[in-house]
């Protein structure tokens, strides 16, 4: 965690970020000590508000976290006094609160980890996990969470309240899972963070700005999880994967905000320092799980193959196929098999690719499978078959941008004249991934 203790107020955005990062730690501790999610949240919100009102005048205190803890604790006591009239309850609540000045960083980190695992508890609906994570771990207001997730504010308020009620009533524990269940539960946390990243990643320039910020929030969360569990392969792999995908943010849309094919992106605009960090993470992560590779780490390795290629023709497709072979040993699904088949088409040519794609069962009406077949048939020059396959793929694809993408990719290979007029507006440069395979089209993990 980067800390700014220089006492200088250098910009409102920096201050808000600092207060949010510290605020969630304070919240995590207060939830444990107060035992009441709502009181803790209100108290921290109060303290954060006071910090944002005071610090621009007074400067950031030397120990911003301690300041927030003390202030939030006072607010919590006030709230408890007001809300719980019974004297003995008040007294016990006050006793429970940590003494002022408690700055045991290990305890605070443990609390943050408890908060992460509670927000991502499998008994909560995935959409509720994401909303709660944004609200508590990212420090967004309910209104901001609602806008970011394209839900009405009242609906979002109810969803978050219901989720907190479920935590309290069903007795979802505020604890870090035991060692034997940690890696499974961590996969759940990673799935939530990855979902959040995709929400932001799939946002286009026309969306509210907050939506695009979700990807950055997800990267921050992945970094937080990694900071808290630095030796867990899933935490390492998740951060590496998101860094690699996020590193292309400035190149993956053109000036008009339309997606650009991976193969056509200006690689100079990729954030090289993030790629370097991710590659180092992958190396460290792989050494930690030589026997059973983590699925996130493996996907990060595949993304790294793309990120490290100086140009599209220099992509190491043999390495990518090998990594897919590894991925299939830990996550064997038809989509993973399809991606591997597409990579084979790049490594060994379209005939081998088509055979591999056709060998994948269970994707008969899955648009990317049909699109991959169409592209391989077009590359083989089997025009009539390609046209039929394009029609099937377009019938299965509901997303307009992906339909345009398919048109464009087929046209690049070989004109398929008869189908063009009836499908899509035919605009160019609408694409979501260079091939059917996917670092630029992340899929839910």
């Amino acid at each position, binding site marked *: 965690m980067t800390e700014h203790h220089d006492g200088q107020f250098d910009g409102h955005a920096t201050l808000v970020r600092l207060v949010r990062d510290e605020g969630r730690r304070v919240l995590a501790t207060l939830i444990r000590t107060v035992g009441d999610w709502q009181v803790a949240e209100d108290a921290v919100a109060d303290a954060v508000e006071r910090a944002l009102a005071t610090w621009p005048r007074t400067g950031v205190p030397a120990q911003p976290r301690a300041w927030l803890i003390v202030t939030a604790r006072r607010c919590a006591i006030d709230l408890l006094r007001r809300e719980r009239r019974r004297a003995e309850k008040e007294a016990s609540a006050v006793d429970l609160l940590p003494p002022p000045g408690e700055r045991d960083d290990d305890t605070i980190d443990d609390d943050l980890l408890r908060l992460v695992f509670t927000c991502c*508890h499998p*008994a909560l609906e995935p959409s509720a996990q994401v909303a709660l994570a944004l609200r508590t771990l990212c420090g967004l207001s309910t209104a901001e969470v609602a806008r970011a997730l394209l839900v009405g504010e009242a609906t979002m308020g109810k969803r978050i309240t219901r989720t907190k009620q479920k935590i309290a*009533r*069903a*007795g*979802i*524990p505020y*604890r870090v899972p035991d060692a034997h269940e940690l890696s499974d539960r961590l996969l759940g946390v990673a799935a939530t963070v990855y979902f959040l990243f995709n929400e932001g990643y799939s946002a286009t320039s026309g969306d509210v700005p907050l939506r695009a910020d979700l990807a950055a929030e997800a990267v921050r969360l992945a970094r937080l999880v990694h900071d808290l569990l630095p030796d867990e392969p899933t935490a390492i792999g998740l951060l590496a994967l998101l860094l690699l995908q996020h590193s292309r943010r400035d190149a993956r849309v053109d000036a008009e905000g339309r997606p650009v094919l991976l193969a056509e992106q200006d690689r100079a605009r990729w954030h090289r320092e993030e790629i370097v960090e991710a590659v180092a993470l992958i190396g460290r992560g792989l050494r930690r799980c030589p026997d059973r590779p983590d699925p996130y780490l493996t996907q990060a390795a595949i993304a790294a193959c793309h990120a490290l290629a100086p140009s599209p023709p220099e992509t190491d497709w043999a390495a990518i196929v090998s990594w897919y072979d590894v991925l299939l040993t830990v996550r064997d699904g038809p989509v993973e098999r399809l991606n591997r088949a597409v990579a084979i088409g790049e490594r060994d040519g379209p005939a081998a690719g088509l055979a591999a794609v056709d060998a994948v069962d269970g994707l008969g009406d899955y648009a990317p499978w049909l699109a991959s077949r169409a592209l391989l048939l077009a590359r083989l020059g089997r025009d009539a078959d390609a046209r039929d396959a394009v029609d099937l793929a377009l019938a299965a694809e509901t997303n307009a941008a992906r339909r345009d993408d398919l048109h464009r990719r087929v046209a690049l290979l070989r004109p398929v004249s008869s189908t063009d007029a009836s499908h899509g507006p035919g605009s160019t440069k609408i694409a979501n991934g260079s091939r059917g395979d996917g670092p630029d089209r992340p899929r839910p993990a």
Partner: protein
Amino acid sequence: MTTYAALIYAADVDWTAPEHAEEMAEYGEFGRGAAAVIRGGAALYPTSTATTVRVSGGKGGDVVTGDGPYAETKEVLTGFYLLECSDLDEAVATAARIPAAWHGVVEVRPVIPM
């Protein structure tokens, strides 16, 4: 401690029939193993014996008695346990030991103290 109802969703059959003796024995085994947290429970006769009760117009209204289960699906409520556990994780871990969880579904719900 919270009391949880572990609702067992399984095949809609007569569990007292001899062909289910082996499965019932597994429930017996679970019951002995988890005796420390079980506060009650029962196996239920098939939904053909079920009656639904609805009060039309709310409190004090006409009692409408219907036949059959409330919602017909392949798997139905066939029994339940009352489990007193320290938190949801313990309740889920215990519910996972109920034989129905192995082939069907067990629904865990906190019980409202009355």
